[in-house]
């Protein structure tokens, strides 16, 4: 039928001639983005296209995080789209070429920005496929058919003989018909396509197709599944290729800051120097269930204190939550993991799931810059904590009474090698108001077994100025120690006994 050379039957109307020109490059509203934009664009143009698309993708992520239904997600996204990224059907009397060019360009700029880590790629694919799906569902029926026929989906139409052969099996998937006649009629009208089952895993998972010899018999009404899967797979491959090619691209030094900015806007909140080490490979990411152990081994007293309180009370007050949440964010806890962590931590408190979803989840996402004004909130530094003057979330070296501080130190760090004979010196620096020196001394003492000597601080004599600096350094040191050991007892798998 249509093989990319779609020629609409336009009249001689002059305005439609312009549109005809516009749709020649982009014959369809839907786009698989196989061809990169090969035309000159200004930097401003590029940035606008990308930023506007980013708003849409952020809305989609936000919808997922709020557990919006599919219909809600669709309507919220469509609303954002009509504002920032309108994309109309061929029948519309808008400037189709500009719309589709913007869609095309924005997608490719974001590919460059998001190809650089596994995590970014995964999130980008998810958001883009959702956008594709929303557009696919809202597309004009005829245009969608034309779009589908314009592409080589490598599906084989099932002929009548074969359809008859598997009639019983194929019909068994028809449910919700009142009587046999209706069912028979529907079956007679249905067309089937054969594809390898690996191309429609979602249909297989829900047992919505008939499978024979590894071929899935997909009714035409479920063809969209094939298109979605194809879109995802292609985008995944394309991002891998882009990631490989990126270092070799002659990167325009005006482009790079924009790309960085874009991906950061998406990750929102996690500072770029943190993203670099943590996003590579899944093993290094901080997951919710790891926090407890990390706290025992790596956190400075202020954060240990917050962690203990959270465990004890299954709750933290607003500023405590904010302080601890931002600390964990910078530590490498992704927003998804943060939600899991806080939800688990609140189990046993008065906060019910419903309330958690409504209020706390929003706050968590807000602190990750995914809600509200989408600001990149940094974690609180020692300076800020020292000014806080609250015993619950400020600097404990400053705010705790000497007795409380000593017992807090012993209970937190005696397993790490701190003994009561270390206390007099620490308390002396505290009474001289050198709180960060006291904290640094604790770091040195508890990391002596990793080879940290007195006066070395958190590296090269530096003293503690930020809770995250403390924790990061401690984690790095442990990792180095681990890596140098050849025999590891890793028990990350189950084995049959």
């Amino acid at each position: 039928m249509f093989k990319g050379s779609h020629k609409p039957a336009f009249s001689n109307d002059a305005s439609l001639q312009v549109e005809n020109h516009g749709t020649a490059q982009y014959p369809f509203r839907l786009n698989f983005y196989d061809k990169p934009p090969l035309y000159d664009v200004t930097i401003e143009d590029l940035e606008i296209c990308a930023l506007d698309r980013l708003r849409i993708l952020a809305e989609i992520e936000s919808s997922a995080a709020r557990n919006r239904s599919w219909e809600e997600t669709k309507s919220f996204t469509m609303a954002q789209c009509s504002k920032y990224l309108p994309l109309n059907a061929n029948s519309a009397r808008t400037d189709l070429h500009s719309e589709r060019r913007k869609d095309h360009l924005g997608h490719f700029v974001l590919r460059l920005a998001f190809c650089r880590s596994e995590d970014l790629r995964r999130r980008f694919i998810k958001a883009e496929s959702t956008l594709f799906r929303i557009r696919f569902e809202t597309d004009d029926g005829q245009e969608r058919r034309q779009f589908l026929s314009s592409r080589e989906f490598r599906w084989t139409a099932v002929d009548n003989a074969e359809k008859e052969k598997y009639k019983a099996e194929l019909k068994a998937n028809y449910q919700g018909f009142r009587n046999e006649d209706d069912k028979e009629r529907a079956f007679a009208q249905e067309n089937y396509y054969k594809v390898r089952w690996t191309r429609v895993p979602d249909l297989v998972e829900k047992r919505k197709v008939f499978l024979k010899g590894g071929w899935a018999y997909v009714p035409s009404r479920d063809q969209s599944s094939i298109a979605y899967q194809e879109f995802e797979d292609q985008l995944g491959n394309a991002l891998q290729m882009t990631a490989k090619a990126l270092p070799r691209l002659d990167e325009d030094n005006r482009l790079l800051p924009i790309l960085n900015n874009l991906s950061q806007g998406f990750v929102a909140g996690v500072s770029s120097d943190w993203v670099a080490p943590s996003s590579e490979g899944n093993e290094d990411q901080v997951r919710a269930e790891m926090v407890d152990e990390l706290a025992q081994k790596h956190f400075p007293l202020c954060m240990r204190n917050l962690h203990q309180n959270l465990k004890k009370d299954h709750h933290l007050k607003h500023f405590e939550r904010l302080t601890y949440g931002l600390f964990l964010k910078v530590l490498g806890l992704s927003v998804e993991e943060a939600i899991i962590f806080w939800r688990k931590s609140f189990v046993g408190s008065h906060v019910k799931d419903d309330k958690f979803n409504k209020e706390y989840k929003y706050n968590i996402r807000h602190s990750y810059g995914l809600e509200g004004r989408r600001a990149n909130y940094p974690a609180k530094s020692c300076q800020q904590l020292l000014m806080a003057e609250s015993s619950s979330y400020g600097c404990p070296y400053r705010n705790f009474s000497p007795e409380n501080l000593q017992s807090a130190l012993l209970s937190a760090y005696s397993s790490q090698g701190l003994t009561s004979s270390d206390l007099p010196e620490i308390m002396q620096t505290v009474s001289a108001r050198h709180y960060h020196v006291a904290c640094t001394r604790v770091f040195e003492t508890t990391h002596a077994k990793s080879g940290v000597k007195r006066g070395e601080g958190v590296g090269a004599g530096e003293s503690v100025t930020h809770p995250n600096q403390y924790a990061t350094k401690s984690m790095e040191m442990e990792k180095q120690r681990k890596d140098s050991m050849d025999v590891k007892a890793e028990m990350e798998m189950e084995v049959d006994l």
Partner: protein
Amino acid sequence: MDDLDASSPEVMRTFYRRLYPFKSIFNWLNHQPVPTRLFTHREFSFTLPQDVYLRYNSFNTVEDLKKQVCLLAPTRFEIGPVYTARPKDKKTVRPGAFKPLQRELVFDIDMTDYDSIRTCCKDAAICKRCWGFIAAAVRVLDTSIRDQFGYQHLLWVYSGRRGIHLWISDKEALSLTDEQRRALVNWMMAVQPGKGKEVGKVIARSGTKPLPPCLQFALSELAEVFSDIILNDQDCFGSEEGYDALLHLIPDSKVAENLREKWSTGPYRTSEDKWSDLKNQIKKYPKGTSQRPILTSAMEDIILLYTYPRLDAEVSKHRNHLLKAPFCVHPKTGRVCVPVDPSLIDDFDPEMVPTVGQLLRELDAAGSQNENGMEHHSDWESTSLKPYVDIITKHAQSLMEDVRRGKRETDTTTW
């Protein structure tokens, strides 16, 4: 008295050196006579005594693997995925560049998941009778995978104690992503085993709708198994505990009460009697009434619940799951994890599987008969391990034959 203890490194070393069929294992994993990435980039992990666990080993040749195994004499070793780089180089490659690529599609069926049903044995014990559950599961899974997914290279391996593993080596199966593996497993999963004494539940049916077609096929097969194993051999509903579980699965309190009354007060009724009592109760509802299909669905569900394969899904869903290699020795039973021919699964008796001690004695006996006999690597020829090695050798040959043929035809299929 078995003086040859499977937990002794010396016994294991001799076993690996003289009996373990490294060559066939290599052919099975590599599909070709010359090492490819399927072998060189493959993870092997070793479990040493005292639970020391060595991961991310890889080898250039099967000789290197054998050398290392004989040196370490692990209590067992596991086979993992093929990675983008050699696992032994893991530390020197960028973390993001080290990813699992390919892996046989594997399944694990274990007696543990049948503990709430079987009546003959408890805990770690297994006998020929409860093997019937495993045999039924193997038949259903083997047929379904071949018929529905079209895979042909299936290797079933006894796990050494009370379960069975399935390794599928078809090209497409090797390359499945985790997402595709999950989809396949969810297609296969019909039953969620319950915790403790709960029987579990059927997850494949949505509401009161008919079963999906793929399960209707399995059901007709399993109805027979249900009668043989559940009603007769295991007499699952004989005890009060047993029929109580059954009554809990009947979504009609009137029927359930009538039956409870009859079974708790009247004379003893066998499981078979009770099952026909249930049928008779259902027949009291005329056809066309709404209770009738609800109750017949419930009967179908009960059959599935008691006989459908109970899979350990997590094993199958991820490419980077490690699974014990065939022909390892189970440290507790001393039995070798031998391949099993699925067409003879009903005759398989786990208690007849050779132990390492038995094999080494056979070896000694054969050795004294012909001095300076055959080379070490084929010593298994003179032991009762032979028929099992023959299974994997034949299996590997058909895989290699496929690859050879595929190369000649330069693979014309596209999908």
